[in-house]
């Protein structure tokens, strides 16, 4: 991310509006994943992510070091998330009921075989579980996992976002897949094993 974010930051600081859109495009996935792991509520995470980018846009001139762009965004997000968590009495992971219906319909339309009975191993899988597993990965694989699994970006786009060669992106996807499946399998087995 650092090589690309250097040029991006300079354009953003100089007032290029397209640079802001690129920043959002590049960072909103990892930021959303981070916020879901903090807040355990997707709507809150989405709201805080939006607020984070607006606040960052207002104060981008304060950031000097492009290498710190991601950490800076995370810090803003973390502070906003803590304020949000203090003001919220929610617990657990929730989705608006009408949203569940819409998503269910979309799954029916876009994934005709999603109606098949899911394999037992993954029947307990949820977005929160995946996000927690991804956030527990080493950073080098965490970003790739967000882009590949949650945003479903092709590896060429992932390579561009990370400022690496496509072959390197493919290698990270392979490794992230092994790690993630191992972590998730372990969690799924813990959940389904008799107590």
């Amino acid at each position: 991310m650092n090589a690309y974010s250097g040029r991006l930051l300079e354009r953003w600081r100089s007032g290029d509006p397209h640079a802001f859109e690129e920043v959002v495009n590049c960072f909103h996935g990892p930021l959303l994943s981070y916020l879901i792991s903090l807040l355990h509520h997707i709507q809150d995470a989405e709201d805080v992510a939006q607020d984070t980018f607006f606040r960052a846009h207002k104060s981008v001139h304060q950031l000097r070091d492009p290498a710190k762009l991601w950490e800076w965004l995370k810090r803003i997000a973390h502070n906003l998330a803590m304020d949000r968590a203090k003001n919220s009495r929610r617990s657990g992971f929730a989705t608006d009921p009408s949203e569940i219906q819409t998503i269910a319909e979309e799954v029916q339309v876009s994934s005709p075989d999603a109606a098949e009975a899911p394999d037992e191993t993954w029947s307990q899988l949820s977005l929160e579980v995946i996000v927690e597993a991804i956030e527990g990965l080493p950073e080098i694989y965490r970003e790739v996992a967000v882009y590949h699994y949650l945003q479903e970006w092709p590896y060429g786009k992932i390579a561009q976002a990370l400022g690496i060669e496509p072959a390197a992106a493919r290698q990270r996807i392979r490794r992230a897949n092994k790690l993630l499946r191992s972590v998730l399998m372990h969690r799924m087995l813990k959940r389904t094993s008799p107590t």
Partner: protein
Amino acid sequence: MTCDEYQSEFPLYVGHQLLPEEDAEIIAHLQSCALCRQALEEERQFARAVHNVSLPFREASQNIQRSAQKAIRREPQVIPSHRLPESPRMRLAIWSVAAALALIAVVLLRHPGATEIDHVADWAIENYPLIDQTHALRGDPATVRAWFREHHQIDISPPVNVDYGKLVGCKMAEMGRDPAPLLRFNGRETSAVFILPARFAATFNAMGNRDISRDGFRIVVWAEGGNPYLKISRLM
């Protein structure tokens, strides 16, 4: 390659992201290796489960991008105070230009999305001949990918679970291209439906369906399910 190496390619294989020759190599290996066939089926189940439960994430992701696009249209540039010129005359000149631009923006906003519609309409009309070429494409995703790579030097990622009897394209916006290639082609009506980059959804949502006729084509744009669509038909 060892079985371990083949299996490490399965995440990209089930996502249709490998080159045709890589696909062919895996397919050939699967014909003689029950272990890898089993591993592939497990990877498919995992990928399907992740895809289904992560839909809310992509919805939220689109919302964040749309909201940022709206915000940047309202306030495209943030000029830190320390960068404003000191001279009152220069400041007056700058604010006058800003006021004029704001006035132009108000005029444009009375026809929301007009320039964007023209932009996508231009693109659709220009790329219509592509439909006549791509509609003949059938079959597996690897063939379609290879065609786009050879003829247009772009690398598309067809979505999982695509019925290639009907769909021959996907969102190019994911690859940084603007707008998007063919989603569906109906040979009898000579019409085609494109799915556009997510950033157009905000404009289409705001102005509702638009239906224009230009240069021998009818173009309809609309937003549905959070996605912006364009349909182009040749006027007979």
